[in-house]
Protein backbone atom coordinates (compact mmCIF):
# COMPACT_ATOMS: atom_id res chain seq x y z
CA UNK A 1 0.00 0.00 0.00
CA UNK A 2 1.26 3.47 -0.91
CA UNK A 3 1.98 5.49 2.19
CA UNK A 4 1.54 9.21 1.48
CA UNK A 5 4.68 11.35 1.52
CA UNK A 6 2.87 14.35 2.94
CA UNK A 7 1.88 12.46 6.08
CA UNK A 8 3.99 12.12 9.20
CA UNK A 9 4.06 8.86 11.14
CA UNK A 10 4.41 7.73 14.74
CA UNK A 11 6.16 4.66 16.07
CA UNK A 12 2.77 3.61 17.45
CA UNK A 13 1.44 3.52 13.85
CA UNK A 14 -0.65 6.67 13.60
CA UNK A 15 -0.39 8.90 10.56
CA UNK A 16 -1.07 12.65 10.65
CA UNK A 17 -1.41 15.31 7.97
CA UNK A 18 -1.23 18.96 9.05
CA UNK A 19 -2.95 21.51 6.80
CA UNK A 20 -2.94 25.00 8.30
CA UNK A 21 -3.94 24.38 11.90
CA UNK A 22 -6.06 21.31 11.18
CA UNK A 23 -4.52 17.90 11.75
CA UNK A 24 -6.10 14.83 10.17
CA UNK A 25 -5.31 11.66 12.13
CA UNK A 26 -5.51 8.02 11.09
CA UNK A 27 -3.72 4.73 11.54
CA UNK A 28 -1.32 3.10 9.11
CA UNK A 29 -1.89 0.09 6.90
CA UNK A 30 0.57 -1.79 9.17
CA UNK A 31 -1.69 -1.13 12.17
CA UNK A 32 -4.82 -2.17 10.27
CA UNK A 33 -3.13 -5.34 9.06
CA UNK A 34 -1.96 -6.29 12.54
CA UNK A 35 -5.25 -5.59 14.28
CA UNK A 36 -6.91 -8.17 12.05
CA UNK A 37 -10.68 -8.19 11.46
CA UNK A 38 -12.02 -4.76 12.47
CA UNK A 39 -15.44 -4.66 14.10
CA UNK A 40 -15.92 -1.22 15.61
CA UNK A 41 -14.36 2.22 15.86
CA UNK A 42 -15.05 4.15 19.05
CA UNK A 43 -14.80 7.82 18.04
CA UNK A 44 -14.62 10.85 20.33
CA UNK A 45 -17.25 13.59 20.43
CA UNK A 46 -16.57 16.76 18.48
CA UNK A 47 -15.23 19.38 20.85
CA UNK A 48 -13.19 16.97 22.93
CA UNK A 49 -9.89 18.48 24.06
CA UNK A 50 -6.90 16.24 23.49
CA UNK A 51 -3.44 16.41 25.01
CA UNK A 52 -0.39 14.95 23.24
CA UNK A 53 -0.31 11.19 23.85
CA UNK A 54 -3.96 11.07 24.89
CA UNK A 55 -6.24 8.41 23.37
CA UNK A 56 -8.22 10.00 20.54
CA UNK A 57 -10.18 6.88 19.64
CA UNK A 58 -10.16 3.10 19.86
CA UNK A 59 -10.27 0.52 17.11
CA UNK A 60 -11.77 -2.82 18.10
CA UNK A 61 -10.91 -5.95 16.20
CA UNK A 62 -12.17 -9.42 17.02
CA UNK A 63 -9.16 -10.23 19.14
CA UNK A 64 -7.68 -6.92 20.20
CA UNK A 65 -8.22 -3.25 20.77
CA UNK A 66 -5.93 -0.60 19.32
CA UNK A 67 -5.73 2.81 20.94
CA UNK A 68 -5.07 5.76 18.67
CA UNK A 69 -3.05 8.53 20.28
CA UNK A 70 -3.18 12.22 19.41
CA UNK A 71 0.30 13.54 18.65
CA UNK A 72 -0.75 17.12 19.43
CA UNK A 73 -2.70 19.34 21.77
CA UNK A 74 -5.96 20.49 20.26
CA UNK A 75 -9.70 20.11 19.96
CA UNK A 76 -11.61 17.53 17.93
CA UNK A 77 -13.53 19.32 15.17
CA UNK A 78 -14.77 16.37 13.11
CA UNK A 79 -14.88 12.59 13.20
CA UNK A 80 -15.36 10.05 10.44
CA UNK A 81 -18.68 8.97 11.94
CA UNK A 82 -19.51 6.37 9.30
CA UNK A 83 -16.70 4.15 10.60
CA UNK A 84 -18.59 3.50 13.83
CA UNK A 85 -21.13 1.44 11.92
CA UNK A 86 -18.87 0.13 9.19
CA UNK A 87 -15.11 0.02 9.68
CA UNK A 88 -14.53 -1.40 6.17
CA UNK A 89 -13.16 1.88 4.72
CA UNK A 90 -10.52 1.89 7.45
CA UNK A 91 -9.35 -1.55 6.41
CA UNK A 92 -9.49 -0.81 2.70
CA UNK A 93 -8.30 2.80 2.53
CA UNK A 94 -6.58 3.80 5.79
CA UNK A 95 -4.98 6.94 4.29
CA UNK A 96 -8.13 8.16 2.55
CA UNK A 97 -11.70 7.17 3.38
CA UNK A 98 -10.45 5.60 6.60
CA UNK A 99 -9.31 8.84 8.30
CA UNK A 100 -10.40 8.97 11.94
CA UNK A 101 -10.52 12.46 13.44
CA UNK A 102 -9.70 16.06 12.59
CA UNK A 103 -8.12 18.14 15.31
CA UNK A 104 -7.81 21.94 15.47
CA UNK A 105 -4.27 22.22 16.75
CA UNK A 106 -3.38 24.61 19.55
CA UNK A 107 0.20 23.33 19.99
CA UNK A 108 1.82 21.54 17.04
CA UNK A 109 5.13 20.70 18.72
CA UNK A 110 4.19 17.02 18.95
CA UNK A 111 3.73 16.90 15.19
CA UNK A 112 7.33 17.99 14.60
CA UNK A 113 8.57 14.91 16.47
CA UNK A 114 6.87 12.49 14.07
CA UNK A 115 8.70 10.44 11.43
CA UNK A 116 8.64 11.02 7.69
CA UNK A 117 7.61 8.15 5.46
CA UNK A 118 11.12 6.81 4.93
CA UNK A 119 11.92 6.89 8.64
CA UNK A 120 8.64 5.15 9.48
CA UNK A 121 9.32 2.42 6.94
CA UNK A 122 12.77 1.96 8.41
CA UNK A 123 11.13 1.65 11.84
CA UNK A 124 8.87 -1.09 10.47
CA UNK A 125 11.89 -2.99 9.17
CA UNK A 126 13.99 -2.74 12.30
CA UNK A 127 11.25 -3.36 14.83
CA UNK A 128 8.65 -5.96 13.97
CA UNK A 129 6.94 -4.63 17.04
CA UNK A 130 3.36 -3.54 17.41
Amino acid sequence: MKRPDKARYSKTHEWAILEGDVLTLGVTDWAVEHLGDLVYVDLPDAGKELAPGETACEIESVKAVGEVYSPVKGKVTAVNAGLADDPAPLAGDPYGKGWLVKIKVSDASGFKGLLDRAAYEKHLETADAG
Partner: protein
Amino acid sequence: MGDALRKTPLTAWHAAHGARMVPFAGFEMPVQYEHGIQEEVRVVRNECGLFDLCHMGRLVLRGGDHLAAADHVLSQNVAKIPEGAIRYSLICTPDGTVVDDVLVYRDAGSVHVVINASGRETDPAWFREHTRGRKVEIEDVSDRQTMLALQGPKSAGILGKLCDADLASLKYYRFTRGRLLKKHDALVSRTGYTGEDGFELFFAPDAAVAVWEALVAAGGKPIGLGARDVCRTEAGMPLYGHEINREITPLEADLRFGVDLGKEFVGAKALRTQDGKGVPRRLVGLNVEGKRVPREGCAVRSGGEDAGFVTSGTFSPTLDRPIAMALVKTALAKEGESLTVDLRGRDVAVKVEALPFYSRKRQKKTSGG
Protein backbone atom coordinates in the same frame (compact mmCIF):
# COMPACT_ATOMS: atom_id res chain seq x y z
CA MET B 1 14.34 -24.81 26.39
CA GLY B 2 16.07 -21.91 24.72
CA ASP B 3 14.46 -18.93 23.07
CA ALA B 4 14.02 -20.57 19.67
CA LEU B 5 10.39 -21.27 18.87
CA ARG B 6 9.49 -24.91 18.33
CA LYS B 7 7.85 -25.96 15.10
CA THR B 8 5.15 -28.52 14.47
CA PRO B 9 5.32 -30.86 11.44
CA LEU B 10 2.93 -28.33 9.80
CA THR B 11 4.57 -25.01 10.68
CA ALA B 12 6.18 -24.67 7.25
CA TRP B 13 2.89 -25.54 5.54
CA HIS B 14 1.03 -22.81 7.47
CA ALA B 15 3.65 -20.17 6.67
CA ALA B 16 3.56 -21.13 2.98
CA HIS B 17 -0.25 -20.87 2.87
CA GLY B 18 -0.91 -17.33 4.01
CA ALA B 19 -0.88 -17.83 7.78
CA ARG B 20 0.26 -15.09 10.11
CA MET B 21 2.56 -16.91 12.49
CA VAL B 22 2.87 -15.96 16.14
CA PRO B 23 4.65 -17.37 19.18
CA PHE B 24 2.29 -19.40 21.38
CA ALA B 25 3.40 -21.44 24.39
CA GLY B 26 6.87 -21.74 22.89
CA PHE B 27 5.65 -22.81 19.44
CA GLU B 28 5.44 -20.96 16.16
CA MET B 29 1.72 -21.24 15.38
CA PRO B 30 -0.78 -19.77 12.88
CA VAL B 31 -3.04 -17.13 14.47
CA GLN B 32 -5.03 -16.72 11.27
CA TYR B 33 -4.88 -17.32 7.53
CA GLU B 34 -5.57 -14.80 4.78
CA HIS B 35 -9.38 -14.62 5.10
CA GLY B 36 -9.28 -13.55 8.73
CA ILE B 37 -10.76 -14.59 12.02
CA GLN B 38 -14.43 -13.79 11.32
CA GLU B 39 -14.46 -15.90 8.18
CA GLU B 40 -12.66 -18.72 9.99
CA VAL B 41 -15.28 -18.70 12.77
CA ARG B 42 -18.01 -18.85 10.12
CA VAL B 43 -16.31 -21.87 8.54
CA VAL B 44 -16.20 -23.71 11.89
CA ARG B 45 -19.86 -22.94 12.62
CA ASN B 46 -21.11 -23.88 9.14
CA GLU B 47 -18.57 -26.09 7.38
CA CYS B 48 -15.38 -27.77 8.59
CA GLY B 49 -12.28 -26.13 10.06
CA LEU B 50 -8.89 -27.85 10.40
CA PHE B 51 -6.67 -27.16 13.38
CA ASP B 52 -3.01 -28.05 13.90
CA LEU B 53 -2.87 -29.03 17.58
CA CYS B 54 0.59 -30.58 17.61
CA HIS B 55 1.64 -28.02 20.20
CA MET B 56 -0.68 -29.62 22.76
CA GLY B 57 0.81 -32.24 25.04
CA ARG B 58 -0.10 -35.90 25.35
CA LEU B 59 0.78 -38.30 28.16
CA VAL B 60 0.17 -42.03 28.37
CA LEU B 61 -0.12 -43.74 31.78
CA ARG B 62 0.45 -47.50 31.96
CA GLY B 63 1.36 -50.12 34.55
CA GLY B 64 -0.36 -52.07 37.31
CA ASP B 65 -1.38 -48.97 39.31
CA HIS B 66 -2.07 -46.62 36.42
CA LEU B 67 -5.76 -46.19 37.19
CA ALA B 68 -5.19 -45.48 40.88
CA ALA B 69 -2.35 -43.12 39.97
CA ALA B 70 -4.54 -41.25 37.48
CA ASP B 71 -7.32 -41.08 40.06
CA HIS B 72 -4.93 -39.59 42.60
CA VAL B 73 -3.89 -36.73 40.28
CA LEU B 74 -7.10 -36.13 38.33
CA SER B 75 -10.36 -34.69 39.69
CA GLN B 76 -12.54 -36.88 37.48
CA ASN B 77 -13.29 -40.47 38.52
CA VAL B 78 -11.01 -42.25 36.03
CA ALA B 79 -11.81 -45.79 37.19
CA LYS B 80 -15.46 -45.18 36.35
CA ILE B 81 -14.81 -44.01 32.78
CA PRO B 82 -15.84 -46.81 30.41
CA GLU B 83 -13.15 -48.05 28.02
CA GLY B 84 -13.34 -46.06 24.83
CA ALA B 85 -14.82 -43.02 26.57
CA ILE B 86 -13.34 -39.59 27.31
CA ARG B 87 -13.95 -37.19 30.20
CA TYR B 88 -12.97 -33.63 30.97
CA SER B 89 -10.88 -33.36 34.12
CA LEU B 90 -8.77 -30.97 36.15
CA ILE B 91 -5.36 -31.39 37.72
CA CYS B 92 -5.52 -29.51 41.02
CA THR B 93 -3.09 -28.25 43.62
CA PRO B 94 -3.57 -29.36 47.24
CA ASP B 95 -5.39 -26.00 47.67
CA GLY B 96 -7.92 -27.02 45.02
CA THR B 97 -6.75 -24.47 42.45
CA VAL B 98 -6.00 -25.55 38.90
CA VAL B 99 -2.67 -26.81 37.52
CA ASP B 100 -4.22 -27.66 34.14
CA ASP B 101 -7.40 -28.88 32.50
CA VAL B 102 -7.20 -32.03 30.41
CA LEU B 103 -9.12 -34.67 28.51
CA VAL B 104 -8.78 -38.22 29.83
CA TYR B 105 -9.05 -41.12 27.37
CA ARG B 106 -9.68 -44.48 29.04
CA ASP B 107 -8.06 -47.15 26.88
CA ALA B 108 -7.53 -50.89 27.43
CA GLY B 109 -4.62 -51.03 29.88
CA SER B 110 -3.72 -47.37 29.63
CA VAL B 111 -4.99 -43.85 30.15
CA HIS B 112 -4.22 -41.08 27.66
CA VAL B 113 -4.21 -37.51 28.89
CA VAL B 114 -4.32 -34.55 26.50
CA ILE B 115 -2.82 -31.50 28.20
CA ASN B 116 -2.46 -27.86 27.24
CA ALA B 117 0.60 -26.59 25.40
CA SER B 118 1.31 -24.40 28.42
CA GLY B 119 1.43 -27.54 30.59
CA ARG B 120 3.95 -29.51 28.56
CA GLU B 121 6.76 -28.85 31.03
CA THR B 122 4.77 -28.70 34.27
CA ASP B 123 2.18 -31.48 33.88
CA PRO B 124 4.48 -34.50 33.33
CA ALA B 125 6.59 -33.37 36.28
CA TRP B 126 3.44 -32.93 38.38
CA PHE B 127 2.20 -36.43 37.49
CA ARG B 128 5.59 -37.96 38.34
CA GLU B 129 5.89 -36.10 41.63
CA HIS B 130 2.40 -37.05 42.79
CA THR B 131 2.55 -40.71 41.74
CA ARG B 132 5.97 -41.51 43.17
CA GLY B 133 6.17 -45.06 44.55
CA ARG B 134 3.23 -46.30 42.47
CA LYS B 135 3.48 -48.86 39.69
CA VAL B 136 2.87 -46.46 36.83
CA GLU B 137 4.85 -45.43 33.77
CA ILE B 138 4.23 -41.91 32.56
CA GLU B 139 5.26 -41.48 28.97
CA ASP B 140 5.25 -38.13 27.17
CA VAL B 141 4.30 -38.95 23.56
CA SER B 142 3.74 -35.33 22.46
CA ASP B 143 6.61 -35.27 19.97
CA ARG B 144 5.77 -38.69 18.57
CA GLN B 145 2.25 -37.84 17.45
CA THR B 146 0.54 -35.45 15.12
CA MET B 147 -2.60 -34.01 16.72
CA LEU B 148 -5.18 -32.41 14.42
CA ALA B 149 -8.80 -31.40 14.84
CA LEU B 150 -11.69 -31.14 12.41
CA GLN B 151 -14.50 -28.98 13.78
CA GLY B 152 -17.83 -28.09 12.25
CA PRO B 153 -21.01 -29.71 10.93
CA LYS B 154 -19.31 -31.06 7.79
CA SER B 155 -16.46 -32.73 9.70
CA ALA B 156 -17.81 -36.29 9.63
CA GLY B 157 -18.34 -36.20 5.87
CA ILE B 158 -14.89 -34.79 5.20
CA LEU B 159 -13.00 -37.09 7.58
CA GLY B 160 -14.98 -40.05 6.23
CA LYS B 161 -13.37 -39.55 2.82
CA LEU B 162 -9.96 -40.57 4.14
CA CYS B 163 -10.58 -42.48 7.36
CA ASP B 164 -11.81 -46.07 7.51
CA ALA B 165 -13.08 -45.88 11.12
CA ASP B 166 -16.84 -46.14 11.67
CA LEU B 167 -17.45 -42.44 12.29
CA ALA B 168 -21.24 -42.64 12.07
CA SER B 169 -21.45 -44.79 15.19
CA LEU B 170 -18.75 -42.89 17.10
CA LYS B 171 -20.54 -40.96 19.83
CA TYR B 172 -19.58 -37.64 21.35
CA TYR B 173 -16.66 -37.97 23.81
CA ARG B 174 -15.79 -41.47 22.58
CA PHE B 175 -12.77 -42.64 20.63
CA THR B 176 -11.94 -45.41 18.21
CA ARG B 177 -9.08 -46.46 15.95
CA GLY B 178 -8.76 -46.54 12.21
CA ARG B 179 -6.45 -45.81 9.33
CA LEU B 180 -6.00 -42.53 7.49
CA LEU B 181 -5.35 -42.66 3.73
CA LYS B 182 -5.45 -46.46 4.05
CA LYS B 183 -2.04 -46.64 5.73
CA HIS B 184 -1.60 -44.39 8.77
CA ASP B 185 -2.85 -45.85 12.06
CA ALA B 186 -4.76 -43.25 14.01
CA LEU B 187 -6.72 -42.75 17.20
CA VAL B 188 -9.88 -40.79 16.39
CA SER B 189 -12.00 -39.07 19.03
CA ARG B 190 -15.25 -37.17 18.73
CA THR B 191 -14.12 -34.19 20.76
CA GLY B 192 -13.17 -30.56 20.30
CA TYR B 193 -12.88 -27.08 21.68
CA THR B 194 -15.26 -25.04 19.55
CA GLY B 195 -18.78 -26.07 20.55
CA GLU B 196 -19.30 -27.85 17.22
CA ASP B 197 -19.40 -31.49 16.28
CA GLY B 198 -15.97 -32.69 15.25
CA PHE B 199 -13.01 -34.98 15.67
CA GLU B 200 -9.49 -35.00 16.99
CA LEU B 201 -6.88 -37.23 15.34
CA PHE B 202 -3.66 -38.67 16.74
CA PHE B 203 -1.16 -40.32 14.38
CA ALA B 204 2.50 -40.46 13.36
CA PRO B 205 4.31 -37.14 12.73
CA ASP B 206 5.69 -38.18 9.34
CA ALA B 207 2.13 -38.44 7.98
CA ALA B 208 1.16 -34.93 9.13
CA VAL B 209 1.47 -33.06 5.83
CA ALA B 210 -0.05 -35.84 3.70
CA VAL B 211 -3.12 -36.14 5.96
CA TRP B 212 -3.49 -32.36 6.34
CA GLU B 213 -3.36 -31.81 2.58
CA ALA B 214 -5.84 -34.64 2.01
CA LEU B 215 -8.22 -33.03 4.52
CA VAL B 216 -7.84 -29.68 2.75
CA ALA B 217 -8.50 -31.37 -0.60
CA ALA B 218 -11.61 -33.00 0.91
CA GLY B 219 -13.01 -29.58 1.89
CA GLY B 220 -11.53 -28.80 5.29
CA LYS B 221 -10.27 -25.24 5.75
CA PRO B 222 -7.27 -24.32 7.92
CA ILE B 223 -8.17 -22.33 11.04
CA GLY B 224 -5.77 -20.41 13.27
CA LEU B 225 -5.57 -19.93 17.01
CA GLY B 226 -7.49 -16.62 16.83
CA ALA B 227 -10.71 -18.22 15.60
CA ARG B 228 -10.15 -21.18 17.93
CA ASP B 229 -10.16 -18.78 20.88
CA VAL B 230 -13.28 -16.99 19.63
CA CYS B 231 -15.13 -20.31 19.15
CA ARG B 232 -14.27 -21.61 22.60
CA THR B 233 -15.32 -18.29 24.17
CA GLU B 234 -18.65 -18.36 22.32
CA ALA B 235 -19.10 -21.91 23.62
CA GLY B 236 -18.30 -20.76 27.18
CA MET B 237 -15.29 -23.09 27.45
CA PRO B 238 -12.45 -22.22 29.83
CA LEU B 239 -8.90 -21.57 28.67
CA TYR B 240 -6.10 -22.35 31.08
CA GLY B 241 -4.41 -19.14 32.23
CA HIS B 242 -7.64 -17.18 31.82
CA GLU B 243 -10.76 -18.75 33.39
CA ILE B 244 -8.66 -21.16 35.44
CA ASN B 245 -5.19 -20.97 36.94
CA ARG B 246 -3.39 -21.68 40.21
CA GLU B 247 -5.51 -19.07 41.98
CA ILE B 248 -8.93 -20.21 40.77
CA THR B 249 -10.74 -23.44 41.67
CA PRO B 250 -12.86 -25.53 39.27
CA LEU B 251 -15.92 -24.94 41.48
CA GLU B 252 -15.51 -21.19 41.01
CA ALA B 253 -15.06 -21.66 37.26
CA ASP B 254 -18.30 -23.65 36.98
CA LEU B 255 -16.44 -26.88 36.14
CA ARG B 256 -18.13 -29.06 38.72
CA PHE B 257 -18.90 -31.61 35.98
CA GLY B 258 -15.17 -32.35 35.82
CA VAL B 259 -14.79 -32.94 39.56
CA ASP B 260 -15.81 -35.97 41.66
CA LEU B 261 -15.85 -34.77 45.27
CA GLY B 262 -16.76 -38.28 46.40
CA LYS B 263 -13.24 -39.64 45.80
CA GLU B 264 -9.78 -38.75 47.05
CA PHE B 265 -7.38 -36.81 44.82
CA VAL B 266 -4.91 -33.99 45.18
CA GLY B 267 -7.04 -30.96 46.06
CA ALA B 268 -10.19 -32.92 46.97
CA LYS B 269 -10.15 -31.94 50.63
CA ALA B 270 -9.84 -28.22 49.89
CA LEU B 271 -12.56 -28.42 47.27
CA ARG B 272 -14.93 -30.23 49.63
CA THR B 273 -14.33 -27.48 52.19
CA GLN B 274 -15.02 -24.79 49.59
CA ASP B 275 -18.09 -26.65 48.40
CA GLY B 276 -19.41 -26.81 51.99
CA LYS B 277 -18.90 -23.11 52.60
CA GLY B 278 -20.02 -22.03 49.15
CA VAL B 279 -17.77 -20.53 46.50
CA PRO B 280 -16.86 -16.85 47.04
CA ARG B 281 -17.03 -16.08 43.31
CA ARG B 282 -18.30 -17.66 40.13
CA LEU B 283 -17.65 -17.59 36.43
CA VAL B 284 -20.43 -15.88 34.46
CA GLY B 285 -21.11 -14.53 31.00
CA LEU B 286 -21.47 -10.81 30.43
CA ASN B 287 -23.97 -9.30 28.02
CA VAL B 288 -22.42 -5.99 27.01
CA GLU B 289 -24.26 -2.79 26.14
CA GLY B 290 -22.76 -1.32 22.96
CA LYS B 291 -19.98 -2.50 20.74
CA ARG B 292 -16.86 -1.97 22.84
CA VAL B 293 -15.35 -5.26 23.92
CA PRO B 294 -14.42 -6.06 27.52
CA ARG B 295 -10.95 -7.61 27.48
CA GLU B 296 -9.16 -9.85 29.96
CA GLY B 297 -8.31 -8.08 33.20
CA CYS B 298 -10.93 -5.32 32.99
CA ALA B 299 -12.44 -4.58 36.42
CA VAL B 300 -16.10 -5.48 37.01
CA ARG B 301 -18.06 -3.33 39.49
CA SER B 302 -21.45 -3.27 41.15
CA GLY B 303 -22.64 0.16 42.23
CA GLY B 304 -19.05 1.37 42.06
CA GLU B 305 -17.78 -1.42 44.33
CA ASP B 306 -15.33 -4.11 43.22
CA ALA B 307 -17.24 -7.14 41.92
CA GLY B 308 -14.57 -9.13 40.04
CA PHE B 309 -12.71 -9.16 36.75
CA VAL B 310 -13.03 -10.17 33.11
CA THR B 311 -11.24 -13.45 32.28
CA SER B 312 -11.78 -13.46 28.48
CA GLY B 313 -13.51 -11.14 26.06
CA THR B 314 -13.91 -11.00 22.33
CA PHE B 315 -16.19 -9.83 19.60
CA SER B 316 -18.43 -12.74 18.61
CA PRO B 317 -18.91 -12.94 14.83
CA THR B 318 -21.55 -15.65 15.30
CA LEU B 319 -23.71 -13.49 17.59
CA ASP B 320 -22.53 -10.16 16.10
CA ARG B 321 -21.87 -8.62 19.50
CA PRO B 322 -19.18 -8.42 22.17
CA ILE B 323 -19.07 -11.29 24.68
CA ALA B 324 -17.02 -11.75 27.83
CA MET B 325 -16.60 -14.11 30.73
CA ALA B 326 -15.87 -12.83 34.22
CA LEU B 327 -15.28 -14.12 37.72
CA VAL B 328 -17.66 -12.19 39.99
CA LYS B 329 -18.73 -12.36 43.63
CA THR B 330 -21.25 -15.15 44.09
CA ALA B 331 -24.00 -12.83 45.36
CA LEU B 332 -23.81 -10.98 42.03
CA ALA B 333 -23.56 -14.07 39.81
CA LYS B 334 -27.28 -14.08 39.01
CA GLU B 335 -28.66 -13.98 35.52
CA GLY B 336 -29.79 -10.47 34.68
CA GLU B 337 -27.71 -8.78 37.42
CA SER B 338 -26.66 -5.28 36.32
CA LEU B 339 -22.94 -4.58 36.62
CA THR B 340 -20.40 -2.29 34.98
CA VAL B 341 -17.07 -3.05 33.34
CA ASP B 342 -14.26 -0.52 33.40
CA LEU B 343 -13.26 -0.36 29.74
CA ARG B 344 -10.05 1.59 29.74
CA GLY B 345 -11.35 4.24 32.10
CA ARG B 346 -14.99 4.37 30.99
CA ASP B 347 -17.72 2.33 32.64
CA VAL B 348 -19.86 0.23 30.34
CA ALA B 349 -23.14 -1.36 31.48
CA VAL B 350 -23.32 -5.17 31.37
CA LYS B 351 -25.77 -7.81 32.51
CA VAL B 352 -24.91 -11.26 33.79
CA GLU B 353 -25.78 -13.80 31.12
CA ALA B 354 -25.93 -17.59 31.34
CA LEU B 355 -23.09 -19.52 29.68
CA PRO B 356 -22.59 -20.69 27.00
CA PHE B 357 -23.23 -17.77 24.68
CA TYR B 358 -23.60 -20.19 21.80
CA SER B 359 -24.55 -23.85 21.57
CA ARG B 360 -25.09 -25.81 18.41
CA LYS B 361 -28.32 -27.52 17.58
CA ARG B 362 -27.41 -31.10 18.32
CA GLN B 363 -28.53 -33.88 16.07
CA LYS B 364 -29.87 -36.92 17.88
CA LYS B 365 -27.18 -39.18 16.48
CA THR B 366 -24.30 -37.25 17.97
CA SER B 367 -25.80 -36.20 21.29
CA GLY B 368 -24.54 -37.45 24.60
CA GLY B 369 -21.24 -36.95 26.38
